[in-house]
């Protein structure tokens, strides 16, 4: 794999990560933050996969697999919180 592919991929994902973080911090509503967290989970999947390719170690794909499978649980939790009438002003 050409190194520039890896570098560019990393670069794109890192920018995405920073943007996601900005939304996470800014909110303004809790669902906004949760959406940002979801996105960050996706980005994390991407980063892990790129890393697997970079190092040629397929083992790391399993980490991404687990994250892909369970990453949305946090969102479900937050949603449950909101639906049950948790504090909305944040």
């Amino acid at each position, binding site marked *: 794999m050409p190194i520039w592919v890896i570098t560019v991929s990393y670069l794109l994902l890192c920018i995405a990560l920073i943007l996601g973080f900005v939304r996470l911090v800014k909110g303004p509503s809790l669902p906004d933050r949760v959406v940002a967290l979801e996105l960050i989970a996706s980005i994390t999947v991407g980063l892990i996969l790129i*890393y697997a390719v*970079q*190092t*040629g*170690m397929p*083992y*790391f794909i399993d980490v991404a697999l687990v994250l892909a499978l369970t990453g949305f649980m946090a969102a479900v939790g937050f949603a449950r919180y909101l639906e049950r009438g948790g504090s909305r002003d944040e």
Partner: protein
Amino acid sequence: METIMAFVVGALFAASIYMMLRRSIVKLVIGLILLSNAANLLIFTVSGLTRGLPPLIPEGSSLPAGGWADPLPQALVLTAIVIGFGVLAFAVVLIHRAYEVINEDDLDKMRSTDT
């Protein structure tokens, strides 16, 4: 990278201690969670960081190919993560329960057992 991680870990320690020093029990427990993460990263960092050499032995070999990251700190951190999870699950529920009993999340108002 160890040097950078040293600062990252330091920052995590600082942030978590700062958080634990707030008056809210929620922040206390979030601070503890963060602190636990900080300690795990510290262990991971001080025994040296190795890129791309997971301690896994490929088929047909009896040693990891091309060297390995020290597996022992990894095992320690894994144990510590799990222990931390158990302990903090307890702590999280404790503050929940404490709030129900005391109806107060301000630590400054939880002084009856001391004085």
